[in-house]
């Protein structure tokens, strides 16, 4: 009798544990949506609304779209974003990448940029990823101060090479994507 009771208790505890974890996962998700995702959607919606309504969209369509619909324009974009002085300034919160990405998305949706350029564009707008965060990121990895002193310029220099390279790789990998369109 006691064994049965103990077994039931164990099962009950295990189930309670799993349900607790699932519930916590849901709570985390809703937290993230409210704290991070919805505010950014509000901000992006406002910008898109203004751009589409005022006709700034046409200016972007004539300047950004030609740049983003060929490989050389995308390469130029990635080189600019990877310049070691600019990249830490463009990095924070990935705000620049998100806004430029959304603008390009609008232009893709309007048919001004062919859809297969979405892949290289994803890399062209983002060679600066994390460049603002190198000392903190290294500190999280428990790096010595000397490592940080060398690591910051090492990563920034590396991006000058790997930023444009990523665009080329993505361009090659985009062949055949949405081909029928």
């Amino acid at each position, binding site marked *: 009798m006691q064994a049965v009771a103990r077994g039931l208790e164990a099962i009950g505890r295990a189930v309670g544990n799993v349900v607790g*974890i*699932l519930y*916590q*996962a*849901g709570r*985390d*998700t809703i937290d*993230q*949506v409210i704290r*991070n*995702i919805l505010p*950014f959607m*509000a901000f*992006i*919606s*406002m910008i898109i*609304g203004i751009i*589409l*309504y005022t006709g700034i969209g046409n200016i972007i369509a004539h300047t950004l779209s030609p740049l983003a619909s060929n490989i050389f324009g995308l390469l130029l974009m990635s080189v600019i974003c990877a310049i070691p*002085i600019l990249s*830490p*300034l463009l990095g924070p919160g990935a705000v620049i*990448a998100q*806004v430029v*990405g*959304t603008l*390009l*998305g*609008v232009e893709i*949706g309007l048919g001004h940029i062919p859809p297969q350029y*979405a*892949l290289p564009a994803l*890399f062209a*707008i983002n060679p600066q*990823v*994390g460049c*603002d965060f*190198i*000392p*903190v*990121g*290294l500190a*999280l*990895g*428990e790096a010595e101060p000397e*490592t940080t002193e*060398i*690591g*910051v*310029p*090492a990563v920034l*220099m*590396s991006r000058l*090479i*790997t930023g444009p*390279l*990523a665009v080329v*790789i993505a361009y090659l*990998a985009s062949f055949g994507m*949405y081909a029928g369109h």
Partner: protein
Amino acid sequence: MEIAARIAEGFIGMFQRGGTQFVGLVTGIIPLLIVLMTAVNALVRLIGPERIDKVAMISSRNVLLRYLVLPFLAVFFLTNPMAYTMGRFLPEKQKPAFYDAAVSFVHPILGLFPHANPGEIFVWAGIAAGITKLGLGLGDLAIRYFLVGLLVIFIRGLVTERITAIMWARRSAPEGQGEEATSATEAAPAVETGGAAFASGEEA
């Protein structure tokens, strides 16, 4: 009076356009995102960070594991920014390269696993929205972004490791070996402090 009314209408119209956009984003992206993120968050909690630590310790030995498997696991299980704590299992000289690889993966992963970095989802979702608007599927783009992302972080790991090694050697070279060597060692910290100042300034 009529002019004023028209201006007012135009002013409101601009924000109505934004509102339509907002509703589109909320109904188009959020429902799937919530359910998917809940599922993956639960999975991550069930597996637990302790087990990931063990995998990380093994992963540090091999180049392929270090700049390909470990950054993926770190970003998937620990998410941005805690993923970078995995660097503590690596030798000092490999930490910058690991950071570079890990941080470069926080966006390519978004197409398939948005729980890893929901605060920056528009790097992916912004461009993806255009594809959706054309009536095309996102699967092809998401999987290619993910795979190219893996290849790119591996290359970044290798390149940054190499650059770190060169800078390290230059710095620790004995002083007074002629003017060129000295000026080179002095130039490196000068560049670095600039970068560090920018970086910490932006973070604060």
